[in-house]
């Protein structure tokens, strides 16, 4: 039936139900990733960011909110240049984080 309008699915994040397994596994490898303060230095310096939407800040946030599809899309645009690691004030090894995330993704998909 056409009511002349449609409802978009709720974008609300239900923290009781988010799947943090990938984030927790990455944090087990390097607990430092939990110290992100969302300052945006990584994204500001990232060459890929302007063209592709890659952002380590957004990757970390999306992982914490269980939005894994967004993570995957962003990661695929990284050139692994490592500039983001140089600027992070919390000293997070963001380049290694990206590599670790890719590795875990490969495993998850390998398992499936």
């Amino acid at each position, binding site marked *: 039936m056409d009511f002349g309008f449609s409802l978009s699915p709720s*974008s609300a994040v239900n*923290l009781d139900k988010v799947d943090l397994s990938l984030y927790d596994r990455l944090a087990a490898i390097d607990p430092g990733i939990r*110290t992100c303060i969302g300052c945006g230095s990584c994204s500001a310096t990232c060459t890929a960011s302007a063209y592709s939407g890659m952002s380590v800040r957004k990757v970390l*946030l999306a992982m*914490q909110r269980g939005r894994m599809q967004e993570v995957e899309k962003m990661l695929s645009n990284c050139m692994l240049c490592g500039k983001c690691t140089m600027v992070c004030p919390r000293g997070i090894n963001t380049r290694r984080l990206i590599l670790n995330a890719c590795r875990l993704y490969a495993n998850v998909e390998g398992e499936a």
Partner: protein
Amino acid sequence: MAEYIAVVGGGIAGMETAVRLKALGLEPVLIERSESLGGHVASWHRLFPDMSHADKLIKDLEKGLEDVDVQLGAEISSLNPLRKGYSLVLTNGKVYPCRAIVLATGFSLFPAERKEEYGYGIYDHVITNRDLEGWFNGKADSRVPESPRAIGFVHCVGSRDIKAGNSQCSKVCCITAIKQAIEMKEKFPEAEVYCFYMDLRLFGKKYEDFYIKAQRDYNIHFIRGRVSEVAETIDGQVQVKAEDTLSGKPVRVRLDLLVLMAGIVCNADNQTFTQAVQMPLDDDGFFRSRDNVGAITESDRPGVFFAGACTGAKTIPETLAEARSAALNVYLYVKGLK
């Protein structure tokens, strides 16, 4: 005739001021409204940034007061100017001619029930920062569940809130929330702990280290967004709604315990003092220093001084430093050196 220095308020500010005045050879009288000394700090358990024990701090201050005239359960009932100083009549009938007065009456904790949308006093599992310190001190509290699986902290309750009548930041509650979040995580390692904040203001020595520790070692979740509403669920939990402003998405979570970080507000009766000695009150309702940079412990009135949180939110080290400064200023004033 003995010439006293009246110290009004027996919190840590008043205690330290009296200890120092005595050491400087003056005769303080410490006037405390309640039946015991220590003020708010007497209700706290462990103190940031070193997790030292609040009761130890108060006991140490009490040691220095053995030879000081301490009037408990007393307030000023009238205050009359003399040629040099003031004559104080206390509610217990005692009269003290005083050369100078140090106001150390501290602050009040924002009454959390006034933010009705957070459900304090309405829902079963909503408490304040003060309640939690009491529970850490061993006070039974049926609102704290035996084994909570999810705990939330709401920052800025009654602070930075013009509608609630307080536009100021209380400055101690961000670090207190992080301290309490870590303490809860230590007690309940299985629980998820969330802090809902607008800005994290961690200005003091070692405060940022607390934050990093809370993130990295305790996996405490920080959500940037003000809690908009709290509702009780059918199974007695509280559901919290906020916007995760970093991702621009609404978030909700069910909690077994919600802790409100009630802010630091001025005492309602500050005006009685300012009227009695004819000095203006500051526009935030606290006492007004002669100068907020160079003369924070001095008032516009000769012989009237301030120490501690009665001029605005203060940490303990700041309060103690001001108490020492006030004592020194009184000494210089009484000796005619300044």
